[in-house]
């Protein structure tokens, strides 16, 4: 099983990059999609047992380079600093805790998008929006649905329609 997990809060500007990426992938990829707030127990529950888990999250860096995407693996993700939003445990804690209790995906990829604005409100800043667009195009090409003969009554090359209601579903898995 492959899962793409968007972490963040769409009401805190660039912190919504992860959820925005998952929204853009909906209906275009043949993998499980989920959005969550980054709370470690929920994250661990989503990725435990997956063959591949791709986590898309916003980060703050110093010096900043908004829109830059950092690709982290199991070892480097554990070093991630606390999250930009208000709660005190973050992705680094989730990776360390998941590893300590043996509940990690076989492969973890973290795509960390550098943001610049994390205040109240909706909408990504232009460079972050462009980074999300570019990142989702790459993921779409990589995770495109398999041909109909393998995954159901769809024409080859046509995206598998989303089965969810289209709303974000923090903490819940939706098959795209």
């Amino acid at each position: 099983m492959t899962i793409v997990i968007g972490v963040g809060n769409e009401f805190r500007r660039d912190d919504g990059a992860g959820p925005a990426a998952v929204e853009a992938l909906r209906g275009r990829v043949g993998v499980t999609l989920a959005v969550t707030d980054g709370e470690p127990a929920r994250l661990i529950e989503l990725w435990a047992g997956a063959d591949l888990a791709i986590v898309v999250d916003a980060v703050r860096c110093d010096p900043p380079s908004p829109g830059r995407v950092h690709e982290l693996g199991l070892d480097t993700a554990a070093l991630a600093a606390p999250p930009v939003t208000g709660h005190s445990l973050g992705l680094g804690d989730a990776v360390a805790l998941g590893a300590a209790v043996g509940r990690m995906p076989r492969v973890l990829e973290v795509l960390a998008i550098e943001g610049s604005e994390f205040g109240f409100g909706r909408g990504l800043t232009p460079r972050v929006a462009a980074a999300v667009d570019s990142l989702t195009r790459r993921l779409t090409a990589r995770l495109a649905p398999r041909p109909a003969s393998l995954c159901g009554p769809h024409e080859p090359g046509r995206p598998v329609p989303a089965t969810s209601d289209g709303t974000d579903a923090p903490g819940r898995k939706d098959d795209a």
Partner: protein
Amino acid sequence: MTHRNDRTLNVSALARVEGEGAMYVRVRGTDVEEVRLNIYEPPRFFEAFLRGRAHTEPPDITARICGICPVAYQMSSCLAIEDACGVAVDAALTELRRLLYCGEWIESHALHIYLLHAPDFLGYPGAVEMARDHRAVVERGLRLKKAGNTLMEVIGGRAIHPVNVRVGGFYRAPSRGEMAALAETLRPALDDALATVRWAAMFEFPDFVHEHEYLALSADRYPLDGGTLRTSAGRAFPAAAFEEHIVEEQVPHSTALHARFTDGGVYLTGPLARYALNRDKLSPLALEAAAAAGLGAECRNPFRSVLVRAVEVVYAIDEALRIIDAYEPPPRPAVPVPPRAGTGHGVTEAPRGVLYHRYDLDADGLITAARIVPPTSQNQTAIEDDLRRFVAPRLHLDDASLTGRCEQAIRNYDPCISCSTHFLDLTVDRT
């Protein structure tokens, strides 16, 4: 001038609490001169931007105040709006609300007990370090939290900021099949919850008691979803009289308002208060677990609040199973709530304590005024008072040890800073 006996303890960002805050303690000689719980998370203005919204919107808007206790906000807001409109929901819907609320208690308490509070008692800097030595224990905590999560997903539509709650009830009631599957998830969780009480009962608790007046809802059942406000000093008043009895005031060091009784009395709300005022309403299984863990008629040591939370998790699972076992799909998922001009009040028991909402509506159902009083802001004065009394006999400790103990004392209250802002770092100033 700095004297040898003058100290400042300053934690500029408290760890293992929900949200952003700090602690400052100034000691002169043997006197604890000042204790401040600084809540610097920015104010959030929910009360202001509820004005002008429709009477149907508060459950969805106020759920966004907190990712840990959104159901509390949904329930208090629904009760307040329905009160304003003169509507009472069907008994079956009240039971479903109670079931959803059990999910939030299980999830929130399991998170606090295992990932935030237990490391203090077992001598670890955090849950990750604790998990390396106590893997099976942390796995049990994660299973419990997942059980609460699943309950929230089935009844609330999703685990964070549930989407199935509406004024008047729900958008959709679960099927018998969904409830049966839920029961199968919860039954093993009951064993995990009982094991949690036995485990927490073995912690070493600092010798400390407080005398705060306890405030909690009281009803014919252990309080979650409504009732009369009562205190350990004998006060009793309905939700509608909340603002006659409790005042909030601004303090310079915090973006959260501080609450007191109008006569100046400091009070405490939350698990310790609920337990003291409602112990006899616990289910037989939860009561038995409490007794076996050494909890008496009341608990006045805030460090032992971890035990009370563990007992409340047993109760919440037991109560959820009772509701599921008796479940018949309701004839309608919601009752109509036509708007009318008026004022409504709602109080429920969030995991951290009493949560009050009040809405003023015009004839079209538009909100003209809103008031939200979350538990952590009510508890700030009591937390600061605890800290002052806790620090004084421990001044022989070095700054690092004393700071650590103070942080633990704050975590006793599971403060949800995000909720309370209108709300930790520790500074101990020994000058």
